[in-house]
């Protein structure tokens, strides 16, 4: 198992380098010019100096190499510095945003809590709702509950967040006036009342996101339970007189959870990646919103770095899901 994990980790490095290169080359084709927004009165030679100061005059491989070094070598040092108060990264060049001229990673760390709060809560809520629904639908297959559950998850699949989000705003914020339509990220929670305010503004984005995730997870849980319910070991468990409750909730559930746990692990990058559309609808200034605004402002270092972080997370959690599968299911051996 350990050798497998190490081998996968080593294999992940060239994969990530390649993805980084693809992202870099794709963005390098961008027609936008970072000096295009500046006033026309600036003479061309000054403009050229500005481009040089942004490092745009160097050849492509050098720029790619510098970006990689800054991201993979300097940024971890900065992180260690801020954790332990050391001075490893002092004086070293970091990845700078063209928009704000501040380090990209600082902005990412500022935006992270909002995304984690909203999307993370939605993920937890979805898991808590989806698992019981999936278990009961499978146990009573083709019952009314199952059919209604299937229909609701179909709706969850089919209604895009930019519609369900706007719809709940129309219903709960415009017509009923119960909830605020905009998520206020400057709101600080320090007592019960402010906690209630925070809760109220989180209800709608969490609801919209959770509907989607619940739909997928409950279908998965149901399919996995159905696979296991007809197995021989279930008959054995019933035959030796175990109560139905123990059979379903201990024997079947534990085996059905194996694929579901890996699916949950595969979904975690989305939490960090932020729900781009939902954040846009509810004006949550998280990671997804940061990416959109960077794309619109032609802020290439920011877009590159964010996309690359998403890619790292996806590759990492794919690996975690595979390893988890091997640990949880003794029938699967990788070596």
């Amino acid at each position, binding site marked *: 198992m350990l050798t497998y994990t190490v081998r996968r980790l080593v294999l992940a490095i060239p994969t990530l380098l390649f993805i980084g290169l693809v992202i870099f080359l*794709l963005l390098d084709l961008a027609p936008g010019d970072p000096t295009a927004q500046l006033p026309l009165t600036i003479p061309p030679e000054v403009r050229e100096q500005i481009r040089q100061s942004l490092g745009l005059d160097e050849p492509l491989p050098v720029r790619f190499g510098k970006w990689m070094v800054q991201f993979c070598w300097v940024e971890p040092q900065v992180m260690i510095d801020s954790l332990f108060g050391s001075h490893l990264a002092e004086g070293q060049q970091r990845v700078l945003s063209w928009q704000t001229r501040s380090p990209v990673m600082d902005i990412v760390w500022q935006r992270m809590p909002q995304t984690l709060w909203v999307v993370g809560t939605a993920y937890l809520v979805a898991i808590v709702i989806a698992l019981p629904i999936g278990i009961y639908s499978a146990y009573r297959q083709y019952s009314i509950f199952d059919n209604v559950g299937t229909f609701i998850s179909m709706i969850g699949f089919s209604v895009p967040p930019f519609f369900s989000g706007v719809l709940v705003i*129309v219903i709960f914020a415009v017509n009923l006036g119960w909830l605020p339509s905009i998520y206020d990220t400057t709101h600080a929670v320090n007592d019960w009342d402010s906690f209630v305010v925070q809760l109220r503004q989180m209800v709608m984005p969490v609801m919209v996101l959770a509907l989607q995730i619940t739909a997928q997870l409950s279908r998965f849980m149901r399919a996995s339970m159905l696979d296991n319910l007809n197995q021989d070991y279930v008959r054995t468990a019933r035959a030796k007189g175990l109560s139905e409750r123990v059979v379903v909730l201990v024997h079947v559930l534990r085996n059905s959870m194996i694929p579901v746990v890996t699916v949950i692990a595969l979904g975690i990058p989305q939490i960090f990646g932020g729900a781009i559309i939902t954040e846009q609808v509810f004006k949550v200034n998280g990671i997804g919103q940061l990416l959109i605004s960077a794309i619109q402002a032609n802020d290439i270092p920011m*877009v590159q770095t964010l996309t690359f972080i998403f890619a790292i997370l996806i590759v990492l959690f794919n690996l975690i899901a595979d390893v988890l599968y091997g640990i949880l299911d003794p029938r699967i051996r990788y070596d």
Partner: protein
Amino acid sequence: MTEDRRTTAEPDLTAEVLDAVLTSGPVPLTPPRSQLSEVWSQFIHHKGAVAGGVVFLLIVFAVFLGPQIWTLDATYIDIRARNQGPSLAHPFGTDQLGRDMLSRMMIGGQTSVLVGIVAMSLGLVLGTLIGVLAGFYRRLDGLLMRLTDLFLALPLLPLLLVMVMLFRDRLSAAFGPETGIFILMVTAIGITSWMPTARIVRGDVLALKEREFVLAARSIGTSNLMLIARHILPNVVSPIVVSATLGIANAIITESALSFLGLGFPPDFPTWGRLLFDAVDYMQQNPERVIMPGLAISLTVLSVNYLGDGLRDALDPRIRGR
């Protein structure tokens, strides 16, 4: 499917043997049923699938034939009749420039459905090609599957946004704003959605390759190309059809999402996502303008998803007949 057809009568049977055969065992009274009618009878018993299919066809007809009946121009600006609610003259109301919403919905639907179908076809062709090549030629397998994994590890929505940002101006200049964006959308969605199809097709081809009929075909000297076209492809049609329906749904949602984020078609060129995006600013005055395009997208995707669900059940011989 062609391989399953059996010869019904052996030519060298004598009348005696034939007689004995006919009188001995139980004789099937009904003629053998074709694969297609089996699939059809399973499909029409799936209520959700039939409803989904009917609704999807209705939407397609309404969107493409509707403008023949409702002939108001979708781009005609009548500024005095702006922001009207539903009335007899404008059943769906008018937008902020007084354009008729019903005709805009139909025109927008044409684009949305067309993007869905074309992008799906592109993704399907790519996915099938890569899946068949990877499954059939062992030398290509490792390389192509690594490529698939790589594409699956890419963060797709951000990349789509980046692609639109990069190539929008260039393609608009080359093909005109509408065609240019259409080509860009379809290509971008197509080349980021082929991976699931490729994986499923590869798995099926790997299993099919070891079957006897492939060996038989090879033994009479069938070339690889003919083998794929005549024996492999017809047998992987069912997973392809299922991923086609899911692909349409996915493409429609992606296109609307891009339009909603303001990175889709130009503002005067309506699609359902764009109409929804434009209506958000007038949410308090005319909430129905938000709901109509959203409902259209959701209904189309829902019907296509149910259709795919039913097709999957109908085309899977292990489930059929239950």
